[in-house]
């Protein structure tokens, strides 16, 4: 049963996600970063849905477990759309955005089928195992795509601070979740670790995006070579 701390995290997380959309509307980049706002709006709705299911059925119920993992998979797919939006912004001058979208959609379908194929071989706990497997793989593919985008930002010498910070925070979010699901898959008994990390990552992402929207405008720039972990 969640205590006051968990409820607070839940509420603050949902409020922060709603704040991203509000900040984006206030500062003007709502349409430009539409897919990011779509993800945050969906995330607020999912939080409300989880709360409803939780109050009706309880935390330990199979209804809540299914709703949690299925909604997480839907959120990850929304995050793919957000990532596609970022690719479109970075590559808009090269005119390759459409091809990239098709490629990413194919990758998404491929990941889903691959996860199904892996789990299909073991019939036990089929659906729940499938959801954890697909979440792990989706987050991992998301991480790879974010990594590629970060490489492209460095290669293209992208200097817009807002884009850079959004991409990097997304990278942090994807890597925490991918590592977390891998840990969940490998060590299901380490619940105190993999139950704590997603809320922490879930709070970090909206805070970082609010910071990027409020602190910088679209024209604020910095030298991208300064940011590479390995000096170039």
């Amino acid at each position: 049963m969640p205590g006051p701390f968990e409820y607070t995290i839940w509420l603050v997380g949902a409020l922060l996600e709603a704040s991203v959309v509000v900040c984006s509307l206030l500062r003007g980049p709502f349409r430009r970063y539409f897919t990011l706002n779509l993800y945050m709006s969906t995330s607020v709705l999912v939080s409300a849905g989880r709360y409803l299911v939780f109050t009706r059925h309880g935390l330990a119920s199979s209804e809540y477990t299914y709703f949690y993992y299925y909604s997480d998979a839907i959120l990850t797919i929304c995050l793919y759309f957000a990532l596609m939006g970022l690719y479109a912004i970075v590559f808009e001058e090269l005119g390759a955005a459409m091809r990239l979208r098709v490629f990413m959609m194919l990758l998404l379908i491929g990941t889903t089928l691959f996860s199904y194929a892996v789990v299909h071989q073991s019939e036990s706990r089929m659906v729940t195992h499938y959801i954890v497997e697909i979440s792990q793989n989706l987050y991992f593919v998301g991480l790879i795509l974010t990594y590629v985008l970060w490489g492209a930002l460095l290669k293209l010498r992208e200097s817009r601070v807002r884009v850079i910070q959004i991409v990097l925070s997304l990278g942090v979010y994807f890597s925490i979740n991918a590592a977390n699901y891998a840990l969940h898959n490998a060590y299901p008994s380490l619940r105190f670790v993999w139950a704590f990390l997603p809320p922490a990552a879930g709070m970090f992402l909206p805070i970082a995006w609010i910071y990027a929207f409020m602190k910088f405008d679209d024209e604020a720039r910095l030298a991208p070579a300064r940011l590479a972990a390995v000096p170039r």
Partner: protein
Amino acid sequence: MAALIFIFSFAALMQFFVSYSRSLIAASARRALSADVQDVIGIKRSASGDDFERVMQFLHLCPDRREDRNGIKAIGAYFRLLGAVGATIGKLLPSLRVWTESERSQCAYFAAVALDRRIAHNRDMFAEQMSA
């Protein structure tokens, strides 16, 4: 498979976190400190990693500014990570230790710029209240 994903994700997390922290620092690196703050904390143009804790103590004495609270927390975490890396792997790789020390000094400069902003903000607030 899960172990491989974990290792890669952890390595990527470190790289993204370092780059994200550097993007926060880079925004303040070009800003010059005011003469008052230079006198108070004894930092002119460049800081050293050892200044960080001292500047943070000054920061905690100053009334909080909501805008830079999260940035300061992130850089605090980055500073501690650098300290841990410098004290462990840095002992084996001298070039890494030099790099962590240079990063730590930039963290200290970031904190000094945040202090400068807080002081200026508080002065403005005080002036506003006095004029009202």
